[in-house]
């Protein structure tokens, strides 16, 4: 870590290199594939053991839920949606950064993305998987949840296309499909590398099948580049649309605190905010653990911190604007909803949300802080907490709406908590499996941004590289 810091802090007028250390193409392959090919180490086993315990908890919690019904949660009459929906929105939000980093930054030719895109995309896929758990299980009659899908049936009964929940089904599943394809297409050359290096049959066959016969031919690369570009183009609008549509779940309703036109941009900003925070939360320990400091450099981390600063400030602006509009609209219910949000029974949640989401990113104005890994790691966790609370605060608008007679309070039960923890178990289990079995950094792409990849690189003349 120290040497990367040193390099970086020279403060040259040129941006620091994207890959630090003395790497050539071979050493990149060795380093990244090494993570996959080395035998299981104890840290990894401990990590997978820990996370799969939580995954088991998720399974048990869902099993009991299916057996007894949604009554095991803390839901009540005014508050029909609780942690399940909070978790859903939270995970969908997390799932934003991956595609944003991959697709949008790819289209904008932001080469620094190469080190983290694989990683971020994997995080996206797993976060969306976590998110997709919830819409299915939160319904009262889980065995009929598939009725939300437009499956032709003998009753000619279709879903209600006016319902934002249905839009959600389409938006999130489309996003998941495109993200998965995008990720997989990007993986193909690297899978082929792993196949070629495989030392046992199972790995050979597994990577062999997954790499779809990739031989690194010119034609392959040409098709690959085109497919990747097209998918990036397809994924980019989805980044904006998916959370816009998730926000419609709230914005289309009539409930004060939900019925707000600011929600789509505010949710997208919040999603990017939380997504980048999660990438950092994952990247900082991983680069250390797997020795990837040369690929995920401080420059990457600083760039992400800048995005967090911008989006966090956007989110803060949205919070302020909500209050302004609540007052400016003159609607008494709206006005009450926001005063109640800040000073009502859930003041603590609101306070947590504001301090984590608005105050904590402001530290990143300081270059010293945003290049400090410890500070970044802690603040990224704060942002994650804050964004979870943001969804909680919004969902809890339900607890006091129009008729004071029906006001109540929502208290989570142990099953709500186990679902949230369990979803982290699912996420980390998938993520830890990913780290072990797939290349966590896009090998071919990183090689592409190496100085050696430039045909005019002076190093060729010096014959330093291979």
């Amino acid at each position, binding site marked *: 870590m120290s040497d990367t810091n040193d390099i970086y802090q020279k403060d040259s007028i040129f941006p620091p290199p994207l890959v630090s250390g003395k790497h050539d193409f071979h050493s990149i392959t060795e380093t990244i594939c090494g993570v996959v090919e080395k035998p299981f180490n104890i840290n990894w086993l401990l990590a997978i053991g820990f996370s799969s315990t939580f995954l088991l908890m998720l399974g048990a919690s869902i099993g009991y839920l299916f057996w*007894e*019904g*949604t*009554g095991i949660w*803390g*839901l*009540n*009459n*005014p*508050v*029909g*949606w609780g942690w399940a929906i909070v978790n859903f929105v939270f995970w969908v939000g997390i799932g934003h950064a991956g595609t944003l980093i991959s697709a949008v930054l790819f289209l904008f030719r932001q080469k620094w993305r190469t080190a983290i895109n694989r990683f971020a995309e994997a995080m996206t896929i797993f976060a969306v998987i976590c998110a997709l758990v919830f819409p299915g299980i*939160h*319904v*009262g*009659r*889980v065995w*009929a*949840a598939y*009725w*939300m899908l437009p499956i032709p049936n003998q009753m000619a*009964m*279709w*879903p*209600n296309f*006016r*319902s*934002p*929940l*249905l839009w959600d*089904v389409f938006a999130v599943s489309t996003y998941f499909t495109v993200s998965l394809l995008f990720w997989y297409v990007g993986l193909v050359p690297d899978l082929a590398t792993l196949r070629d290096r495989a030392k046992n049959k199972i790995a050979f066959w597994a990577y062999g099948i997954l790499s779809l016969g990739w031989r690194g031919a010119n034609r392959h690369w040409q098709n690959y580049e085109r497919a990747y570009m097209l998918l990036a183009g397809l994924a980019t609008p989805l980044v904006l649309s998916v959370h816009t549509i998730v926000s419609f*779940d709230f914005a*289309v*309703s*009539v*409930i004060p605190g939900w019925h707000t036109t600011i929600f789509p941009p505010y949710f997208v900003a919040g999603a990017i905010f939380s997504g980048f925070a999660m990438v950092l939360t994952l990247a900082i320990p991983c680069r250390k653990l797997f020795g990837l400091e040369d690929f995920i450099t401080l420059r990457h981390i600083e760039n992400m911190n800048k995005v967090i600063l911008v989006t966090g400030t956007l989110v803060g602006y949205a919070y302020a604007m909500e209050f302004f509009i609540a007052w400016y609209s*003159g*609607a*008494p*219910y709206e*006005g*009450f909803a926001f*005063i*109640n949000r800040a*000073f*009502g029974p859930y003041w603590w949640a609101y306070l947590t949300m504001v301090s984590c989401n608005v105050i904590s990113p402001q530290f990143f104005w300081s270059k010293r802080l945003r290049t400090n890994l410890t500070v970044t790691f802690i603040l990224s966790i704060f942002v994650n907490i804050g964004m979870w609370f943001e969804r909680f605060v919004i969902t809890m608008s*339900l607890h006091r*709406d*129009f*008729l*004071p*007679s*029906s*006001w*109540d*309070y929502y208290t989570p039960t142990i099953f709500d908590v186990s679902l949230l923890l369990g979803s982290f178990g699912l996420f980390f289990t998938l993520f830890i499996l990913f780290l072990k079995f797939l290349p966590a950094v896009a090998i071919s792409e990183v090689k592409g941004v190496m100085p050696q990849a430039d045909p005019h690189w002076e190093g060729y003349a010096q014959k330093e590289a291979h």
Partner: protein
Amino acid sequence: MNNNTRKYWRSRDELQQSPVYVAEAAKEFQDELDVSAEESTNDPSRRGFMGWVSAGLAASGLTGCEIIRRPEEKILPYSVASEEILPSIPQYYATTTQAGGEVVGLLVESHEGRPTKVEGNPQHRSNYGALNNFQQSTIIDLYDPQRLKAPKLMGKAGNRAGAESALKTLGASLGGKKVAVLSGYSPSIQLHTIAQRMSTKLGASWYTYESVSDDHQMAAMETVFGEALRPRYSFKEAHAVLSLDNDFLGTEGPSVAYASEWAENRRVDKVTAKDAKLSRLYAVEARYSLTGSNADHRVRASHGQIEAFAHAVAAELGVAGASQGGVALSARQAKAAKVVAADLKANQGKALVLAGRSQPAVVHALAAMMNESLGARGQLVNYYTDYRRPMHKAGMGDMKSIQELGKALNSGSVDALIILGGNPVYSAPADINFAAALKKAKQVVYVADQANETSAALDDKTAIIIPQSHSFEAWGDLVGIDGQVSIQQPLIAPLFDSMSEVEVLASLLGDSETNGYKIVRNAWKSAIGAVGFHKQWRRWLHAGVLADANAPFIASSAPAQGLGSLKSNAGKTPTDGSLDVIFVAGHNSYDGRFANNAWLQELPDPMTKITWDNAALLSPATATKLGVADEDMVKVSANGQEISSVAWVMPGQADDTVVLTLGYGRKFSNYLEYHQGSYHDSDVTGFDVTPVRSSTNAFFAAGGKVSKSGGTYDVAAVQRYANSHQEPGFGFEARALVREASVEEYKENPGFATPGIIHHGQPMPDQSKHALLHPEERSIFGDFDYTLTKDDNRNPLMENQALLAAKHQWGMVIDLNTCTGCNACMVACVSENNISMVGKDQVRRGREMHWIRMDRYFVGGDAEPEIVHQPIACQQCETAPCENVCPVAATVHSPEGLNDMVYNRCIGTRYCANNCPLKVRRFNFYNYAKGQPELVHMQRNPNVTVRFRGVMEKCTYCVQRINKGKRRAALNAGVAEQIIDRITPACAQGCPTQAITFGDLKNEKSEVVRLKKTARDYTLLSELNLQSRTSFLAKIRNPNPDFPQAADAEGSTQAG
């Protein structure tokens, strides 16, 4: 055909008409089945054999056929006289029941022989076709799995025949021995008759005890009129009413009839049309009762001040002997008394004074004398024989009665004690120590509905415990307060080996006839003579009531003799910081007899909104003084005893007063799955207050103490006082949910209630401005197309529906001015729609399932707020927010304007409930019906689904009743309009004051259209463009301009 000469034949036999063929052919096409002639049993044909076999099978099947539990006696349906029961067509039988001596006429809906729903008999003057929550809930007492199922004879289980012979043996052995009978109030002619025979034949002494007793009234009547009379008030002509702590709209007297009559003079439109006045109600009370919340002026006074108030008003009215008494009035109260007296005087002949049962006898006497001097006698109040106590002796009130019985038992002189119903061990005040006294009886016969505290206190070796027949299982005859007699005909043969009280006594007396039916019928036959009796009897059973000529008593003409020597016993102002303790009958528990009735337990108290529990109610100032808050555990001491309870702040209650509700703290073992296990933390509902009760003054104790005992208790309240109070930026006025005005304000601006959208916290002055602000306030999906075209639906059935679609559009109006907040609609809805009761723990979690709820809001200051009630069910919005958010289209708009809820389609996303601005949708978080015994299923309405877990539900305007009405209208084209007009949802039908009006908005002549056109009509949250089908008529109070303002009425910043 005859011209056709070509012959076709099938066989040669046919062609030749051979004898064999002719015989067989004749058999083949017989005109009728004829088994008699040729098919004797000796030579059965195939057909004959099958016939005999199937007849035999059917006959043997009949013996086991107890699905239809019709009693063997002849009973008659009220209106649909069909020879046999048609499946799915319910029948209605007129019958009657009583609780605490209050008789009501019932029409009980019976599906295939099982009673399912209780409705009121419109011909009965004690309830005019409506019912209160107790009477409606009695149906689940019938199917209570905890009922006693078999007699227990000296510790051994027996059956009915065994019980009868045991009683007979016992009765024969009682000659010359001391027999005591204890019963509750029972205005039954047969019981009175047999009580007389118990006395003459066995020398039995009769004791009557009711925990919620009318002792003070009885004492007053015996002083004023020289005999035990009961006043029957009439509110139809009453223009000024003063209630001295009498909760006549809630738990006292024939409250359903009273509420109904009182409401007649609160119907603003009718009253103004007649150019008559809106009646004015003054209530003086220490606790906050329903009557108090409906009063135009409520005077908050301590228990003792109520008496002083009565004296002050009586003195103004010139009642001889009215002077001083009770606790000194404040200056404002004294002024109020003068104003009230002046108003009563001004309404001479149209004014009425009532005294409540917890008030001392002198207040009752004062009320009676005031009514005399106001000329109310004969018009607004009539006095009838108090027929509730069999074998009544002057001066023997309930408390005296139980004291004497206790003494007799303790002296060991009672050889046999017969307890007819009730639960005296639980309900008798602590000083009696009835459980100990009971042990001294040598032999006890206890007729009980279920195992309870009393049956547990009995010694198995000496006790005969007999299951008590439910009133829907037993024959009887009951006399209403004004002498109106109704026959109690059973709906169902006794489910268990139970007996009615009369049958028990008849067995004990060794009568040859112990069958309730024959006892009742024979008695009436001998009363009116055998000639024409049969026809008369059928008519009685059909109508449910007898002609007034058959009344056992008529209005008394005994002259009022003045206050006599009645003295105040209300004590003086406490100076030692002690509290007044007031005991009140529970709105839902009454005296504890309904403890096992989940419908009542889960019904929120109309004032405190607490379910499944009672609490020690304190005024805000007293709570502050004592340092207790809502849900703090407290110790309440009075009469030298101490109980533990939970504190609950009740604004508007008198200071330095603690109100304790009777009827709680009973062991309760519920059968509902989700009341048990991990969801259930206590099998006791509420706190027993009888230990601090004394038989010397059963409703009041001075010198009480309340102190914090540490710890808190989670009260299952469905609406909290703190919710609508003490919260930032609440702004209740801006919400304008309940809109009300005084008569003067209403006259000035009749359209005050329709100010359209609320903007910047201010109501907009008129609709036109509303339109200006929101020129195109429409659903983005466009209006619902009520003229479904054929293209929309390929299903031919739907075309028919499209034709019908234009025909009816349903709507509802709720008059907040006549709604008293009594909760009868809630029980009616539960009963009709198979609504699950979820238990205390689930209510604590906010998961109660009532489709219609009664919202309560406080208005004004903390000390003396007014209270308004507002029933809220699904408003059937035209642009319903719930409809468009459902992803599976499980809640959809019907062509008749209802928001249909399709249970089968619902997957339970709960989005609709979230988006419902009124939060009227209810979700089945669990399978609440799980594990219920078959017996409980018998109550279910077969026309309504019992919802499974994970399904949303809500008010449907009783769509099953609408459809039934439409079907009947289609079959009876001639009277179709009348049939459609008579379609009534359960809530509207059960409402004692007819505050709910339902009808077809397309019928310009309908009552609902008339009401919707009145100026007071408004819809809730109209600014959301909901276009609700349910609208409200604003509340109009009729305050007296001279009345002194409440101390905190002005300058209060918080309302709500």
